[in-house]
């Protein structure tokens, strides 16, 4: 290998802005772009927009459930709300956001100039965008904008036979099916792209064993995308055949099976949730070391654990189906495989603690979000373990306890992780720092809101409150709890607003960041902020997992120990 020429840090430049050029031209440039950085930003913004829309839908549900016997929205509108909320959040908020982060950072982190297939990359984004547009077109379809138009109302996993032409007249379900089908193609394209980029585009010296954790987790995520989106695509095709060509896949009248849809959906659905959480784990694994001033603890084991999670998560899907009357052996098997995931996940949590142990932790906003995410992953995982115990799930399943469980993971880990990432990499993306004071306000508001909402959401579940009900009687004793839960949302919304404000303000007013504001160690910090179109004028040669550490500490570089 070539002798490591030092990574010459380019001189700090004030990020120049496109303001000068005519808006049409700027827009045109963004629409036709194939640059991974721009596509990453577009993915991210698209996801945030969806998060806000989905959040508003959630707020409507919470307003309806805040008190017993509420008549704020009609039953069908409520059912459309949770369907759209779930679908939007999973497929058009969470996935685009993690894809965006992967898109922006993967080439930078492995010392490449772009993704393997830039045009396919753009195609993937526009497919995802189109899918979302089709889904939301349902609002203006059907009987116009009354209520929620003809938005789908079958729930985000659309169990058969509720989706059959007999029970879902009109086209509401088709918006859902076709929207997800198309965005699924986009996801597969992006998964393929990330995978190939990681395998083929690594810069000189960037061995697999030297890749940053985030890149590792993203490649496992990409692998899961490749194997898990297929089943969803297949199931959606079958559903379309049933609805349009008179097929009988899920037609229980003609001998079809309602349960096989559940299998097909969850064979996709469970890996999906790990598709979402693994990148979040990756973010934590980047942020925590830098702000503890120590390398990630047990890199090899962390990588192994990630791969283990990836594979095990393909064999646990039926833990969503403990109540459909599987044989005791099937149930027992899925209890075992599901609980087994606790081990690699635990390893991750312990290694994050190990990374902080003996370090010098500075509590910048990204670090605050990361530490909170670790603690919340612990709790959310443990409620998962309760659900994984099949008999316990016969009680908890489809209750608000489940809702609480997965919001705990999705918000407590994924959204917190995404916020951490936004504060951590914003300087790299825009060249300016985000305001720490606003950041702290955002953190505390969102933390309080999150816990008020989702800690207390476990309780109605334990008191026998099923999910997907648009109202309940006061005599059921769920009212007080639901009120508390709803109040928490206000704080979350405020937190998000603070964040949005911070992002916008810092873009113009934030102080110049320089190349490496956090004194970090991965490659992306060696180029200018924002990086030039070609990322690296001179592709850096890597000799260890922390190339910038080697650069800053020639006296004891990492490669001596690896």
């Amino acid at each position, binding site marked *: 290998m070539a002798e490591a020429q030092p990574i010459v840090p380019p001189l700090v430049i004030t990020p120049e802005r496109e303001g000068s050029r005519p808006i049409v031209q700027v827009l045109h440039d963004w629409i036709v772009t194939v640059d991974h950085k721009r596509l990453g930003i577009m993915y991210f913004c698209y996801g945030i927009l969806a998060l806000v829309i989905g959040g508003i839908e959630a707020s409507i549900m919470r307003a309806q459930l805040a008190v017993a016997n509420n008549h704020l929205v009609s039953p069908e509108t409520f059912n459309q709300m949770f369907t759209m909320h779930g679908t939007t959040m999973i497929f058009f908020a969470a996935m685009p956001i993690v894809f965006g982060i992967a898109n922006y950072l993967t080439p930078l982190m492995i010392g490449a100039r772009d993704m393997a297939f830039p045009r396919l990359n753009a195609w993937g984004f526009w497919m995802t965008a189109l899918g979302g547009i089709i889904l939301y077109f349902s609002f203006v379809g059907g009987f116009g904008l009354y209520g929620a138009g003809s938005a789908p109302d079958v729930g985000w996993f659309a169990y058969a036979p509720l989706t059959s032409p007999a029970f879902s007249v009109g086209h509401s379900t088709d918006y859902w099916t076709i929207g997800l089908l198309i965005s699924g193609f986009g996801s597969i394209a992006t998964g393929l792209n990330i995978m190939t980029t990681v395998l083929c585009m690594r810069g000189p010296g960037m061995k697999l064993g030297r890749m940053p954790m985030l890149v590792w987790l993203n490649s496992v995520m990409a692998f899961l995308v490749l194997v898990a989106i297929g089943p969803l695509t297949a199931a959606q095709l079958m559903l379309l055949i049933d609805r349009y060509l008179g097929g009988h896949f899920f037609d229980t009248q003609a001998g079809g099976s309602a349960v096989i849809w559940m299998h097909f959906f969850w064979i996709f659905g469970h890996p999906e949730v790990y598709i979402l959480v693994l990148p979040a784990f990756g973010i934590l694994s980047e942020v925590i070391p830098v702000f503890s001033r120590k390398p990630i603890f047990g890199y090899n084991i962390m990588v192994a654990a990630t791969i283990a999670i990836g594979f095990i998560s393909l064999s646990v899907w039926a833990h969503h189906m403990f109540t459909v009357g599987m044989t005791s052996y099937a149930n027992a098997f899925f209890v075992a495989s599901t609980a087994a995931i606790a081990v690699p996940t635990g390893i991750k949590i312990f290694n994050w603690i190990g990374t902080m142990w003996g370090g010098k932790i500075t509590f910048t906003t990204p670090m605050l979000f990361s530490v909170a995410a670790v603690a919340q992953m612990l709790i959310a995982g443990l409620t998962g373990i309760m659900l994984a115990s*099949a008999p316990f799930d016969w009680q908890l399943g489809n209750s608000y306890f489940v809702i609480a469980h997965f919001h705990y993971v999705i918000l407590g880990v994924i959204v917190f992780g995404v916020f951490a990432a936004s504060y951590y990499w914003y300087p790299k993306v825009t060249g300016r720092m985000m305001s720490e004071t606003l950041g702290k306000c955002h953190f505390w508001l969102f933390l309080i809101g999150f816990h008020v909402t989702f*800690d207390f959401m476990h309780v109605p579940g334990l008191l026998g409150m099923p999910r997907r009900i648009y109202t309940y009687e006061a005599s059921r004793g769920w009212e007080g709890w639901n009120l508390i839960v709803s109040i928490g949302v206000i704080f979350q919304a405020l937190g998000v607003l603070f964040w949005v404000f911070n992002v916008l303000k810092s873009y113009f007013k934030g102080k110049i960041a320089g190349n490496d504001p956090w004194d970090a160690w991965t490659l992306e910090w060696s180029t200018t902020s924002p990086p030039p179109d070609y990322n690296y004028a001179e592709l850096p040669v890597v000799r260890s997992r922390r190339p910038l550490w080697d650069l800053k500490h020639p006296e004891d570089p990492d490669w001596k120990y690896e």
Partner: protein
Amino acid sequence: MYPRSANCESNSSMPCEGRARRSSRQVARLALLFLACGSSAAAATFGPSPVPSLFSPDSTPAHDIYHLSLFVLAICLAIFIVVFSLIVYAVVKFRRRDQDDGHEPPQIYGSNQVELAWTVIPILIVVVLFLAAARVIHAIEDATFPPDAIEVTATGHQFWWEFQYPAYGFVTANELHAPIDKPMHITLLSADTDHSFWVPQLAGKTDLIPNRRNEMWIEPHALGHYVGQCAQYCGIQHAKMLLNVMVDSQADFQKWVQDQEAPAVTSEQVAAGRKVFEANACMNCHTIAGTPLANGRFGPDLTHLMSRTTIAAGAAPNTEENLTLWIKGPDAIKPGCLMPAMQLDDQDVKSLVAYLMSLH
């Protein structure tokens, strides 16, 4: 908090259980005090309750699950306390101090011993959790029944429940009667979409799925009225598909069975109402045993409507006003339910309700 008063009333008549059960409830309370801020302690009650807490079981399968859940909760609680305090300790102890020398801390890359430790211990815990769960799965799913176990076939409809007692040959709706301390074996079917049979205090939930035959069983140990609810999204009125299970003493149950077996008898003063019923589409959707015409199966069996405390699957108390309201327009009580408003003039509705009120 909230439910307390309600419970006490509903329980005043309930027999109180032995110390053992209560103390185990204390454990549950304790566990939950940590887990959910003591919340559901408020709901851990004795006997049936409108707040069907998972922590006040009154039936054999529910009990098995309850004890397993305490065990799982305890383990999770222990793990939580240990790991959480580790996090807190690390964060507090290793934060950068004000009087910091600016040097980087010693760079530790990992340690195989500790990695091994925190791999093996969780594996052991997982094995324990699996064995505990497997035991209860077997106990509940592979249970065998004494020949005198009561057989019931529950069929889920959008959005109500049909209960058949094959042994006695009658059909009823929305309110299941079961004798105390006797196993009842329930066969679960569905006429349309998925539903799920869930009465938390009696047993875990099992889905009712079209073109599939599921089973579950209960063995209640306390008298009274247990509430549950459909727990699988089944359409617009999934929220108002409540389940009522009446646990009777052996004698009361036998009496109830006899009443249900008898056909409906129409007295003269309500004959007008019966005519209206048979002159309209009612009879196409509803069965009234003892009348030749009314034999529809699309809606609940009305033969002994008045033996039920609620109408439309717990959507409203079974009173004259509600029946009138219901027949004038079901949407007033259960918007979107599958019974159409029949556009009858007030006179007909009046006599019709009178007739329905006579169906004891």
